[in-house]
């Protein structure tokens, strides 16, 4: 293929958007081949290099090229649809194949450059494919409305009730210190309740996952809830363990709810958190043309 042009494209300059990598199965038609790509008019095509297949779309260089993509990133409506499209393509691919997901926005100049990258990183990519074989990723986020939990503990905890009783009868002089003690004890019980739930969830789910990883808790701006995110984790689960994993998470969800915490399970996701190939340090064209 000639650099910068792709058969079927309308003769405009195009570049190659990469979604992820699967094992090559020569001669096989991928179910996903031909599905809608990162932009509606782009198809998703397999690009075979040795024993690996990259799934790619030829996309217009004016939007996805070095400088075009950077300015395109400022258009939030456009970008939102692209992020969701990237995910949708990977979800379709993973319904029939093990797939190593690439980060959003991985773009090469042309298909020979994609093939070169696959050849250069053949060993790591094969390892990554082995690691995620027959699995999917599941997300667990736990939210806690601290004020609700606080009220619950204030009415339910015997120790806290005792302290409140003492506080009510305290002399004005002793009151100040008792007040401090009360607040500290309450904070302590809130923290202990949260920590206990989080530990139980971790232990319970780890039993049915082949790998797990903590994820940084999101700020309220990202998750958009009034409750705080007190746990964020990703689990890699084999197809065989999935029913037990889901049952356990449903049971833990109930258990947490009794303590005023909400467990949210999402998935199946492409195994983003369990493919850790990162090779950086090469200044890209976009960086150098600014």
């Amino acid at each position, binding site marked *: 293929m000639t650099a910068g042009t792709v058969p079927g494209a309308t003769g405009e300059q195009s570049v190659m958007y990469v979604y992820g990598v699967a094992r090559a199965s020569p001669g096989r038609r991928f179910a996903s081949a031909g599905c809608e790509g990162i932009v509606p008019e782009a198809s998703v095509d397999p690009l075979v290099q040795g024993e690996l297949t990259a799934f790619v779309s030829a996309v217009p260089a004016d939007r996805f090229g070095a400088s075009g993509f950077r300015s395109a990133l400022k258009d939030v409506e456009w970008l939102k649809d692209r992020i969701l499209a*990237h995910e949708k393509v990977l979800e379709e691919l993973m319904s029939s194949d093990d797939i190593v997901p*690439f980060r959003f926005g*991985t773009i090469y100049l042309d298909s020979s450059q994609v093939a070169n990258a696959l050849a250069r990183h053949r060993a790591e990519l094969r390892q990554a494919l082995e690691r995620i074989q027959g699995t999917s990723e599941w997300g667990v986020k736990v939210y806690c409305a601290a004020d609700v939990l606080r009220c619950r503990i204030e009415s339910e905890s015997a120790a806290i009730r005792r302290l409140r009783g003492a506080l009510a009868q305290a002399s004005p002089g002793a009151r100040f210190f008792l007040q401090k003690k009360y607040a500290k004890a309450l904070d302590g019980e809130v923290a202990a309740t949260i920590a206990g739930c989080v530990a139980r969830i971790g232990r319970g789910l780890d039993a049915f996952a082949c790998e797990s990883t903590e994820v940084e808790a999101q700020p309220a701006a990202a998750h958009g809830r009034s409750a705080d995110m007190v746990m964020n984790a990703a689990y890699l689960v084999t197809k065989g363990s999935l029913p037990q994993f889901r049952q356990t998470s449903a049971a833990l969800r109930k258990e947490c709810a009794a303590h005023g915490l909400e467990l949210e399970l999402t998935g199946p996701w492409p195994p983003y958190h369990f493919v850790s190939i990162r090779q950086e340090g*090469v200044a890209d064209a*976009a960086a150098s043309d600014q």
Partner: protein
Amino acid sequence: MQRHPTNRDQLALSELLDRALNKGVVLWGDATISVAGVDLIYVGLKVLLASVDTAERLRQNARATASADTEAAE
């Protein structure tokens, strides 16, 4: 699936902030022309906030329309 049916895009975006924008394979080759040096998390957060705004505006509009209808009916 435990995904929110009503709010799928919103939820998907906040999940993708952790995933498609933060994780996944990164192979910067000589020919990679994408997002090296771009803080995708920050970019994604802006997208998310913009869509929260949009959803909130739609809700408010719906509420405004509903109350206008009620007033008109009275």
